[in-house]
């Protein structure tokens, strides 16, 4: 009986801690927005972060996109040919990429490639007291260090997701049309008649913007709040990847539910 009560207490305690942490990230996000003026005034700061978060993630995003598209082409063709509708493989590849896999997989890759790097960088700046040194020189680390990294992530992720989807469709085309021999005309025409610009492509972009905000906020928060030790920074980096991946998947469910039902 005592064990049961203490077990329930642990559950309550954990839940409160999770809610507290979500609240802290939200407050941190609000504070980033308040300190964002410098990121746009001195845009070179943000451009530098777009380079580190976006351009340097290009290889992993492009290669993954190509392979995911190829696998979708193979699997889709394998299943659809049983029903004699292998021409629809283009629709399957495009819709799965534009609606779901493009935004979600690129967000997961972005969280592990760029999110963890942002956390480690800010965490190490804190551990080596660079942030305190900035404060001593009357430079606000929130506007000089955190906000540009946040906006760099928010700008990069939607572009990476678009590139992922485009590469995936090229991968699907290579497998289905070039390798297997599905008719090229029906591949594109069926795709065009099924994919809607507003309902599929724009909604996919909206998703990736939301994921970009979530991942960048979590990554900068974890770095900024990391204990200034080697262990603390490594723990914060791990937490960034875990919590931002979970946040992406949870947000994806909520956004998909809204988008399928319509916003009103």
């Amino acid at each position: 009986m005592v064990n049961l009560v203490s077990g329930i207490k642990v559950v309550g305690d954990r839940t409160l801690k999770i809610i507290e942490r979500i609240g802290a990230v939200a407050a941190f996000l609000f504070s980033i927005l308040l300190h964002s003026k410098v990121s746009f005034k001195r845009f070179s700061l943000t451009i530098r972060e777009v380079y580190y978060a976006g351009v340097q993630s290009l290889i992993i995003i492009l290669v993954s996109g190509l392979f995911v598209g190829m696998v979708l082409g193979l699997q889709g063709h394998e299943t659809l040919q049983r029903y004699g509708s292998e021409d629809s493989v283009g629709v399957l590849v495009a819709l799965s990429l534009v609606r779901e896999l493009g935004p979600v997989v690129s967000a997961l890759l972005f969280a592990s490639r760029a999110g963890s790097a942002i956390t480690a960088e800010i965490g190490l700046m804190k551990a080596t007291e660079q942030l305190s040194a900035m404060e001593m020189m009357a430079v606000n680390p929130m506007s000089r260090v955190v906000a540009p990294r946040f906006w760099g992530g928010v700008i990069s992720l939607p572009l990476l997701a678009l590139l992922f989807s485009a590469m995936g469709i090229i991968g699907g085309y290579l497998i289905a049309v070039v390798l297997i021999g599905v008719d090229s005309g029906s591949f594109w025409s069926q795709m065009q008649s099924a994919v809607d610009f507003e309902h599929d492509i724009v909604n996919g972009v909206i998703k990736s913007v939301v994921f970009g905000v979530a991942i960048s906020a979590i990554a900068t928060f974890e770095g900024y709040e990391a204990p200034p030790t080697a262990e603390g920074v490594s723990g914060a980096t791990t937490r960034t990847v875990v919590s931002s991946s979970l946040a992406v998947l949870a947000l994806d469910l909520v956004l998909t539910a809204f988008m399928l039902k319509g916003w009103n």
Partner: protein
Amino acid sequence: MERSTLNLWVGIFVLLGFFSFLMLAFKVGNLNLSGNKDTYIVIAHFDNIGQLKERAPVRSAGVLVGRVKAIQFDSKQYNAEVKIAIDSQFHFPVDTSASILTSGILGEQYVSLDAGGDEKYLKNGDQIKLVQGAVVLEKLIGQFLYNKAQDSSTDKGAAK
């Protein structure tokens, strides 16, 4: 890294992202440059619309001439009111008939317009009088079975 090289790479990255957006919009999606073409709305009342959805194609002679704009239940006539947006470059006579057909056996449902012979054309807000709703497979099978049963009973009656 030197600032100009960095700017160049970010520029290339943004342009690549922009081009993939354009590729998705024009090559993959159905957005074309005359995207929001002028349309006019005509209304058709169907007894049964089957699986017809909003944004379903409207074809005439197999060519896409418009899309289903809205579907709602008419609570006065107890049937389905379908608003059809037709591209303004296509004109149909007032005695045009509308029917709901299925593309292929398992395909999506669409509205088919068969032009009539009248000299007056349909205008915005007009109603299509000649309509044929979707074929409901269950009703068709039910009717077939009923006819079959009736035939066999008349055969038995004749045998007696």
